[in-house]
């Protein structure tokens, strides 16, 4: 698979942070949705962020992907072999360009476009053609287009969606829509992939194949994953480190086994219900 990123490896070691937030806070009106959240996503690992409903998980995603501008704090990306990049205050598209890609809790596909086109749009930030290229279709543009289509097809084949390449996204079964959203995010060649409750609405079988998907992504692509999830079994089985957030504050962090036993976590979850 063509990888346009600089070769990784020399400077990056598994476990080093690739994405880091320091003191991230978000205030809506008087309401503190996030309060001093410090979080690290280790390179080539799967990190999870869990918390009860309304605890600020999605707000956290929105803050680091530029949809909201955080009130305080820092978001830093450490690309392998390159200087660190401060992401705070950048526009969402620029952040994606730097290598953060996300999915959405409620699937946000481009419904009236085909599956392939959805993935092609994911290639947007790795392509160059502009207005002139589009109008005159010069050789460079044609080659780029060919490569993009090729790349997208390969992705679809890898994740088992190629037989529906020319279907409209809205006509896909629900599980495939989730899958397509992840593939679309992968097409942007992210350094960090942010998955917002990918198991929401999936049945047991689908969830289990999602688990396989997530693991295979981490193995196949050189990508670190930050996962927001409700499904505890999924989180526990795939992630190396888990952060727990409640009322906008981090209340615990650590490997799955520790988190499972953490009284604060148990209280936060059970106390809610």
């Amino acid at each position: 698979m063509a990888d346009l990123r600089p070769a990784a490896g020399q400077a990056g070691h598994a476990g080093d942070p690739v994405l880091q937030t320091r003191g991230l806070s978000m205030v809506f009106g008087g309401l503190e949705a996030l309060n001093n959240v410090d979080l690290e996503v280790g390179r080539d690992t799967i990190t999870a962020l869990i918390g009860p409903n309304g605890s600020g998980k999605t707000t956290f995603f929105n803050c680091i992907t530029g949809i909201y501008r955080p009130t305080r704090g820092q978001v830093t990306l450490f690309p392998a072999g390159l200087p660190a990049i401060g992401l705070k205050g950048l526009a969402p598209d620029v952040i994606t360009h730097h290598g953060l890609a996300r999915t959405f809790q409620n699937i946000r596909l481009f419904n009236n476009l085909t599956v392939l086109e959805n993935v092609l749009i994911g290639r947007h930030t790795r392509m160059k053609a502009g207005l002139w290229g589009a109008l005159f279709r010069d050789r460079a543009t044609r080659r780029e287009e060919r490569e993009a289509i090729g790349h997208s097809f390969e992705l679809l084949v890898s994740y088992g969606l190629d037989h529906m390449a020319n279907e409209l996204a809205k006509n896909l079964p629900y599980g495939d829509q989730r899958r397509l959203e992840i593939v679309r995010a992968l097409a942007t060649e992210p350094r960090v992939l942010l998955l917002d409750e990918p198991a929401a609405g999936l049945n047991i079988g689908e969830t289990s194949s999602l688990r396989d998907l997530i693991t295979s992504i981490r193995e196949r692509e050189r990508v670190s994953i930050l996962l927001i999830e409700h499904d505890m079994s999924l989180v526990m089985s795939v992630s190396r480190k888990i952060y727990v957030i409640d009322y906008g504050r981090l209340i615990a962090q650590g490997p799955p086994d520790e988190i499972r036993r953490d009284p604060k976590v148990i209280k936060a979850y059970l106390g809610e219900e």
Partner: protein
Amino acid sequence: MTNPSSSQKPGRAILAEIKAGLLASLWICLLAFPLMTLEINPSSHTISFSASRLPFLAGATFVLAILWRFFLRRRAFQGVSKAVLKSEGLPEGLIKGPKPTWLTVVMGSRFRYPVLAILLGFMALLPFVSPPYLVNVMVKALIYVSLGLGLNVVVGVSGLLNLGYVAFYAMGAYTYALLGQYLGLGFWVCLPLGALVATLMGLLLGFPVIRLSGDYLAIVTLSFGEITRLVLTNLDITRGPRGISNIRPAGFFGLDLNGPIKDFLVANLGVDKDMDINKILTYFIILGLVILTIICVFRLENSRLGRAWLAMREDEVACQAMGINKTRAKLTAFALGSTWAGLAGVVFASHLSFINPTIFSFMESIMILSIVVLGGMGSIPGVILGALVLIVLPEQLRAFSQYRMLIFGALMVLMMVFRPGGLIQSAREVYLHKLGGQDGPQGGPAGGAARIEALNGAGRPVEGDGRG
């Protein structure tokens, strides 16, 4: 697949229909009662009563109401069948959107180039064999096609509701009229200039308003359209409401087309002797412009930029998350749409030879928007058909003379109720890619639709709902 109401006794169902029809007809008569029965005699200030129109109205409403209910239920039934299929565990992927139409069939086959060539040949021959009136209507229709395609980029493809499109059309027209009037510049110089002026105005307006979303953008563009018209009405340089007349038609290498060239054409090609040959030139200019527009829009739609627009239309948040610079994408779409309006404006001014601000009214923007929506948003053939229908339909309805606008308005409503996606719904490009064992074309939408036809027996695959 059972129709919910057919499970009842048919007799009772029919009775219910008749009752509903009667009720509707009674209601409409009640509504129409004062306006259609009382007539004022303006000179004597008296009022007279005549119910002679009511029985006809009642009868017509009765029939229409029953038809309306029938078609509405049929529409709803189609929606149901999709849900039913899903609940029966059939993958929804089978009931797919674009069904094969004659258009996709022809354009997908190896006949596409011959068909296009024949069509083009027909279009090229048309002005030589038809009377001046028809050429005139064709020029006008083609101007609307080009306007429709331009607005389609903004509204249909990018999802930016522009209700002041006519302002940019006016910019183009006035650029040519004014430059021609005051500086003596010719058509060919003004064509790019008009486009440039319209584009710049598009950018100028675009910068501040582009961050407005949805309806607010619509409202600002609407106001901008009105402001443009009002300024044109009040400026001295544009001669206000009197407009600018004697705008020169497009030239052809400085030749006098109505001289010996005309004699030749009349004698040898059977051109109508009353034909203004300049109109034929205008026809070819606008035809060329339309073809160019089609090529451009088609290329744009299937390019990185065009996909960015489509993504923006589908979901603004997700499109940014895909690395698309929303502001830039919006601005390009907005400005590019304006470019076509400018081009069409220049051709329009040269065609009509007279322009004034009343031509560029809000209703004109609405007409162009209707072309896009009625034709099928985002669909190039749809927009072309939409333009032809909207220009030709009122002409054909002349038989009903005074009722034609009434019918036109009613048709717009009916069209939206029963076919909200437009006449020709946009179909997406099918990409074929050779991969081991996987071949593209027959796995595409066409095959799927064929399968479902066999499945639900209705013979009519479910249509995708309109685009949002």
